[in-house]
């Protein structure tokens, strides 16, 4: 019986593994990535969206961050998902959107909001 239970527990642990990452680990990684992006974003003058389209490198990093972020959702217990997951999904959708925007106040504001959600 005990051996059976050990085998089954190993099976469940494998299926439910989150790659050793915890919510705090993931949030910390994402927050660092966002801070790095923010640091490299100069305080912008108001610009028309077409004025600056050289955002390729930031876009790549943002996409990576979004991918990383999605991994956080199942780390929350389902009881918390109603609020936590919705906030996260919204944040990641905003990050996806920000990757398509040129540098400017709007994009900067979106990044700050997302950072707030992930820190929260």
């Amino acid at each position: 019986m005990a051996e059976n239970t050990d085998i089954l527990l190993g099976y469940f642990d494998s299926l439910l593994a989150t790659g050793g990452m915890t919510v705090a680990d993931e949030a910390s990684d994402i927050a660092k990535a966002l801070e790095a992006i923010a640091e490299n974003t100069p305080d912008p003058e108001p610009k028309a969206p077409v004025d600056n389209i050289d955002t390729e490198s930031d876009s790549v990093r943002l996409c990576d961050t979004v991918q990383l972020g999605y991994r956080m959702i199942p780390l929350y217990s389902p009881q918390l998902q109603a609020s936590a997951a919705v906030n996260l999904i919204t944040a990641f959708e905003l990050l996806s959107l920000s990757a398509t925007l040129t540098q400017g106040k709007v994009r900067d504001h979106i990044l700050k909001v997302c950072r707030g959600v992930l820190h929260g």
Partner: protein
Amino acid sequence: MRIWSISNQKGGVGKTTSVVTLGGLLAAQGKRVLLVDLDPHGSLTSYFGQDPDGLDRSLYHLFFEQRWRNIDYIRETLKPTSLDNVSMLPATTSLATLERQVSGQDGMGLVLARTLAQLWDDFDYALLDTPPILGVLLVNALAACQQLVIPTQTEHLALKGLERMVHTLEMVMKSQKRQLPYCIVPTLFDRRTSASLTSLKEMRRTYQNSLWDEAIPVDTRLRDASHQGIFPHQLDAETRGVRAYRHLLAHIDQVAK
């Protein structure tokens, strides 16, 4: 979204009937409902006129190539039912091979949780119809749900299945480091038989804290509804089976809150 898994490691206890009837009653209250078929037999899928052998895509496909990330792909996989506000994520028989295909890959018990997280705003409730066997699909359901409902036929062998189900649940909770509330629902109750009465008494003695204090009676109208591919309350809203499920719904809603 609130996620309820209807599970038991024994077959023929009324899982699919419970999913369909509860889903229909939620829809009648104006809720947007998603029914998820995790059983390779595809009973729920067949119930609504889809062929588990003939569908191009199903829950199976969400396990590969990270398709659970693609919300458009997930939405296009859903199938309609006989009610506008109820959709179904169907099963195909290929699900039976999943255990082998995901063997050795960590984290494959969380695919459904991730998929439902993507659909969080699309539905008010998701009801999961699980296979009667311990494996990756049942683990996905237990990992994704917030409330477990365990239909248990009122007969001796079903009590052994219930024992196994509760043991499995305890191990999954230990692995996930969380508590999952569960409600045992006596089904196919026939008060004319001593087997039903004895089993119900045994359930009450062993699981008094988790047992719903009513029972779903045998009701041929539930079977009639499945033949027509409609929700039981659409066939007869006041048949005794539907009335009992209405009481159960109120009970689970209360417990889950």
